[in-house]
């Protein structure tokens, strides 16, 4: 009886009064039931995996290993961020892995064989990525070839290009200091780390409070203060604990060489995360990406240039793949024709899907790539510590990807059963 009353009457907030925490929680539960799982499955998976590995293998929870998780997962996470854009349109880019390999090869060849400075080599690698994306996007959007086929062809061809670029399979080792800083040796001095952490938390709090204020001032539905408090405390707790752990000395032999501070790569991934989230959520371009993914015909009728959006997501994806390739080159201190090969692509697609991005288009966020990337990194790292063979790792990662795709498909079915889709 009470429930029917609540659904029929407009909520108090519509008249300008703020929502309460209870309203907010009820909405959240309703969304979960309707199949809008959001980040929940990935978070649960992450907590479960960390607990499991932490108990089964205590070295998993050391500061050294914690820092390793970031350096190991970064390349896949960055590629997954780009893939989110492509997946949002219901397309796929199977060539993202080898595109990152080609861009890493370009970087290595220019850096080592042609003695280009590091910034020029990085620029060239990123431009290569953008060009690759442009070609793929034009083939898909203008010629109308299914993205699956275009990128499968590119998957093969890029493998060949990488081989040709670095003389049939030799290994180019990278010694440039600046490149190695990216995902190998670069660490933020502890006090700067704490300053960064404080700045991020303060900025987040200010943003949330300001948004709430201006909404309340205009008489719009706003997030209750209690929810903002919970969000800020959660972020502060997670960030604080992470910075503390990363600032511990994780050197195997502290007397010989001290190893402390946030790895550079954490900052890089953080900046990319904030930037792309802003693009997707706060700009007209991002809105149009969602619209084209949700209903292409509606987007076209609304005057959106659908072809341009479709091309642009492939450009973003391949450009991010280039960034991922540079990160991988930095971490491995070398580039060979297998950089970006084997499991990189599947891990990246897996990361996006595990995080909650739909394979059917229209649904996905950048944070999905980060959370999913963390899950993939934890599985890889934890199973490595438990001395499982690579074969067993592949099987487990494959199963987790399948599980995530299943959750995606089931939540869609639930949504349509609940009349939501």
């Amino acid at each position, binding site marked *: 009886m009470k429930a029917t009353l609540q*659904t029929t009457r*407009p*909520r108090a*907030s*519509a008249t300008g009064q703020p929502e309460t925490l209870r309203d907010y929680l009820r909405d959240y539960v309703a969304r979960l039931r*309707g199949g809008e799982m959001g980040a929940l499955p990935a978070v649960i998976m992450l907590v479960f995996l960390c607990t499991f590995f932490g108990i089964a293998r205590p070295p998993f929870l050391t500061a050294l290993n914690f820092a390793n998780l970031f350096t190991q997962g970064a390349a896949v996470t960055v590629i997954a961020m780009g893939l989110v854009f492509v997946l949002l349109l219901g397309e796929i880019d199977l060539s993202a892995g080898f595109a990152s390999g080609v861009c890493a090869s370009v970087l290595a060849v220019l850096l080592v064989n042609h003695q280009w400075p590091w910034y020029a080599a990085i620029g060239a690698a990123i431009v290569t990525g953008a060009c690759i994306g442009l070609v793929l996007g034009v083939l898909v959007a203008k010629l109308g070839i299914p993205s699956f086929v275009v990128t499968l062809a590119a998957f093969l061809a890029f493998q060949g290009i990488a081989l040709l670029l670095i003389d049939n399979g030799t290994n180019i080792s990278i010694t440039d200091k600046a490149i190695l800083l990216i995902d190998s040796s670069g660490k933020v001095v502890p006090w700067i780390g704490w300053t960064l952490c404080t700045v991020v938390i303060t900025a987040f709090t200010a943003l949330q409070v300001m948004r709430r204020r*201006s*909404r309340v001032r*205009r008489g*719009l*539905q706003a997030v209750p203060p209690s929810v903002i408090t919970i969000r800020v405390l959660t972020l502060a707790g997670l960030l604080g604990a992470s910075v503390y752990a990363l600032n511990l000395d994780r050197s195997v032999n502290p007397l010989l060489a001290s190893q402390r501070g946030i790895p550079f790569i954490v900052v890089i991934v953080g900046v990319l995360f904030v930037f792309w989230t802003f693009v997707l959520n*706060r*700009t*007209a371009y991002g*809105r*149009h990406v*969602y*619209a084209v*993914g*949700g*209903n292409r*015909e*509606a*987007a076209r*009728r*609304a*005057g*959106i240039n659908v072809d341009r959006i479709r091309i642009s997501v492939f450009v973003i994806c391949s450009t991010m793949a280039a960034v991922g390739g540079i990160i991988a080159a930095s971490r491995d201190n070398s580039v060979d024709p297998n950089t970006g090969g084997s499991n990189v692509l599947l891990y990246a697609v897996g990361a996006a899907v595990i995080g909650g991005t739909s394979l059917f288009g*229209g*649904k996905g966020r950048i944070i999905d790539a980060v959370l999913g990337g963390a899950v993939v990194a934890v599985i890889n790292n934890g199973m490595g510590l438990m001395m499982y063979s690579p074969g067993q790792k592949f099987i487990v990662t494959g199963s987790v990807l399948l599980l995530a795709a299943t959750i995606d498909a089931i939540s869609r079915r639930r*949504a349509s059963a609940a*009349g*939501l*889709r």
Partner: protein
Amino acid sequence: MNGTPTLEIRGLNKSFGPVHVLRDVDFTIHAGQVTALVGDNGAGKSTLVKCIGGIYPMDSGQCIFEGRPVTVNHPKDAARLGIEIVHQDLALCDNLNIVENMFLGRERRSGIVLDELTMERRAAETLASLSVRTVISVRQQVASLSGGQRQTVAIAKAVLWNNKVVILDEPTAALGVAQTAQVLELVRRLADNGLAVILISHNMNDVFAVSDHIAALYLGRMAAQVPATEVTHAQVVELITSGHSGPLGLQSQQKAGSPEGSDDLDLVTDPGKGAQR
């Protein structure tokens, strides 16, 4: 019928290849009134509104908008004049919420950032001006809306942009009884707010419930355009099915004048629809 009509079509002809779909059609609509456009399948209703909306160019005929002749050769021309068609298949994005859908393609921005507050405010105001009470929150995803609510959002989207002519293509075709009533109420309110509304419908009850004028097309000709109060249900059905009803409608010599016309007009449906795709 007083004052200048918002839109007047004179002597409109439209052919698809050898098929003459619209013959010398005259059609007038006024601000503040609902004009129902009725006719059997293949009578040319869709072709007529698509000519008005600029989707099909006219072969011949005049289009007079608020007293001055205009040419509408492209949907953008129609949009500039303030003519908006609410299509039967709605064209909403399920994964976006109501505000996002209403402003799709015409987002308000401050700098490069979307101005969510202004958009949300204006969407809420527009819905309120149409006395829409069925929608709980403008931040609801369209996927979670019922058929009637979706129709409401699609219509409100047309109103948001200060359009002068709103063309509704069978807005109640897929709705239940209660939702049909809500949408019809909304259609009436559009006209009361000063818009010229064209309502395409097959349902005579809906037509008589909200229309001021009824225009009946019969095999590509305008059989009659009459005030709704001056005709009965049965007369309109007769106009639709035979093109005339007593003194109303196409007289027999007009119809007999083009025997070859009725031949090719039997084919109207297929090529006409085919050309849309």
